[in-house]
């Protein structure tokens, strides 16, 4: 178990204009499960690879247990990594794959066997120990890759998009298993994914990255309830948050746009300021006294209905749990649930807090 800290870490790949990771500061506590999430090219995998030692650090420091390891060789860092494509040694059996680190470390065969058997038991891999990776299913290979990491009992586990090669059902199952296993082992874990649902369901804390920079670092609910900018607000949550551009009314307590939409805000803001408001789909409600909206598309999912509305100045998606039998073209009134209208600066997209 270990604490990790990225201190002002920068990585710039030769021949590229912008840094892959820029001035990253990220403290991770002992035993914490931290997920780095963001779109492709945001620097999350580079950050993980810098922590593993597979990628160089141009400037800054990475500390494990307070010790700077940013120049240490990968093997000296005591980290175990689960790769996206599992990286199982194809010519070795499951048992040999899992025990490879211990074999290289010249541990006695009896110890290797014992540790491999314990890990295999934990992961339900005991019947497959003599098989080769090619004879395993995707989920089993995934478990072997995890087993290889567990056998080592390292200070830190690193996961680089480990579920992206699995089908949807298995992905849901495996993310539960990984989370459960990490809870049992209590080992500090850094997990990279581009899937925000994976991030939300697994993480103790999530680091949202974009274009090499850390946008927000917090618990899943913090990110969901109080996103610091429009990027985080739009990235976290599925379907994504609805954004409407406009300005603050003269009274400071309402939002309006040029198309005539008007909404009450929580708190007061600088009158006349250009803002973007954000409302999550589940926080839109049908209300007779709300602003006018036309139904454009109805998508029932069984548990709820996703409705796309034409609203003044654009479109918005609402997730409604009750069945309203809405039809395309139907006119309704819409409003936002009190306390759930996020206000962002119209220029830089940063979150604005209203005065109460």
């Amino acid at each position: 178990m270990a604490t990790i800290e990225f201190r002002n870490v920068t990585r710039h790949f030769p021949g590229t204009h912008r840094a892959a990771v820029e001035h990253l500061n990220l403290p991770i506590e002992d035993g914490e499960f931290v997920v780095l999430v963001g779109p492709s090219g945001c620097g999350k995998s580079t950050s993980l690879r810098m922590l593993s030692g597979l990628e160089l650090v141009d400037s800054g420091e990475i500390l494990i247990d307070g010790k700077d390891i940013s120049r240490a060789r990968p093997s000296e860092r005591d980290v175990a990594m689960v790769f996206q494509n599992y990286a199982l040694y194809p010519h070795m059996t499951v048992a040999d794959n899992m025990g490879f680190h211990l074999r290289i470390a010249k541990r006695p065969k009896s110890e290797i066997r014992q540790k491999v058997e314990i890990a295999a038991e934990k992961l339900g891999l005991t019947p497959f120990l003599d098989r080769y990776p090619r004879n395993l299913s995707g989920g089993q290979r995934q478990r072997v890759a995890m087993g290889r990491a567990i056998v080592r009992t390292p200070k830190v586990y690193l996961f680089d998009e480990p579920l992206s090669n699995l089908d949807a059902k298995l992905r849901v199952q495996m993310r539960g298993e990984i989370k459960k296993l990490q809870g049992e082992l209590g080992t500090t874990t850094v997990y990279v994914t581009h899937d925000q649902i994976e991030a939300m369901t697994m993480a103790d804390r999530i680091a949202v990255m974009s274009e090499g920079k850390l946008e927000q670092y917090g618990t899943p609910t913090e990110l969901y309830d109080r996103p610091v900018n429009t990027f985080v607000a739009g990235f976290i949550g599925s379907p994504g948050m609805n954004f409407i551009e406009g300005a603050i009314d003269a009274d400071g307590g309402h939002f309006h746009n040029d198309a005539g939409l008007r909404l009450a805000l929580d708190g007061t803001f600088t009158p006349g300021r250009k803002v973007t408001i954000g409302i999550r789909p589940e926080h839109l409600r049908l209300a007779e006294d709300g602003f006018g909206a036309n139904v454009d598309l109805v998508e029932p999912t069984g548990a709820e209905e996703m409705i796309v509305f034409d609203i003044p100045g654009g479109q918005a998606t609402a997730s409604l749990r009750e069945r309203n039998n809405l039809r395309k073209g139907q006119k309704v009134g819409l409003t936002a649930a009190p306390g759930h209208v996020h206000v962002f600066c119209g220029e830089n997209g940063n979150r604005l807090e209203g005065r109460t």
Partner: protein
Amino acid sequence: MLLRKMPWPAFRGGVPTQGAGAPAGAAKASDNAGPVKLIGLPLTWAFVAFNIFVLVWMVMSSLKTSSEIFEVPWNLPEVIQWENFVIAWRDGNFSRAVLNTVLLTIGTAVATIAVAAPAAYVLSRFKVVSASPMTMYFAIGIGIPAQLVILPLYAIMNQFGMVNSLWGLWVLYVATSLPFAVFFLTGFFASLPGELEEAAMLDGASAFQTFRIIMLPLARSGIVTLAILNTIAHWNETIFALVFLQTDDRMTLSVTLLNFMKAMQYNNANWGGLFAGVCILVLPVLAIYLWLGRQIIEGMTLGADK
């Protein structure tokens, strides 16, 4: 067969492309290329038939008397003349030549792979500036014909006292094998997934351990193919052996056969014995081809494909 055992998914993915996928693709291509199929296919079959005919006729003639070969060249032997092989083996000094050739070919294949595999691994996997020019340098070496360099080589080898020496010839064979071997294996190692090296690195393996324990076994298919091609090439090699070897006790099989042919032409013209000598040279290579032909083709296309 060996490839079927290759465990890495990428390879397993690659094999059907060669095995199951490629014929389908080839059929599709030949459907589109009508004239190529119309002319090419009969020509190919004619070439195959001619080769089989020559081979069968050679084996048949090696079991006949000289008079039978000229009088009834297309007939089966009346009495099988096994003694032709005894004559060739004894009079042609083939026993010593076979031993020399076996030692040379195996020694060359082993040394070539021992040098080429690590070199190719470094050239294909290590991000060093000089890797690409060096790979090109090796590739250029493939294009230099042996005849062109044989005189300077002779002068150099003579200076080192390595003319008329099997060690000297072995050094030459290994040196001239390296360009193709390194080029061939570079492509092979480049096709292996880099994540495996990274996983090994995190597991604490050194660069050499990664090469020996992880990457080398995965390149087995390419290495076996290279070993076979190298063995066949040096089993048949004549020019260097003819120029650099001088005494009978150091001759290789191909030169011994050449000498035996000369002797036979002037010594009672035992054509049956001569054909037996040719069979002794050709049949082992043919057996290797028949046994491992599929492996050779798959290994070559796999390396080229990736």
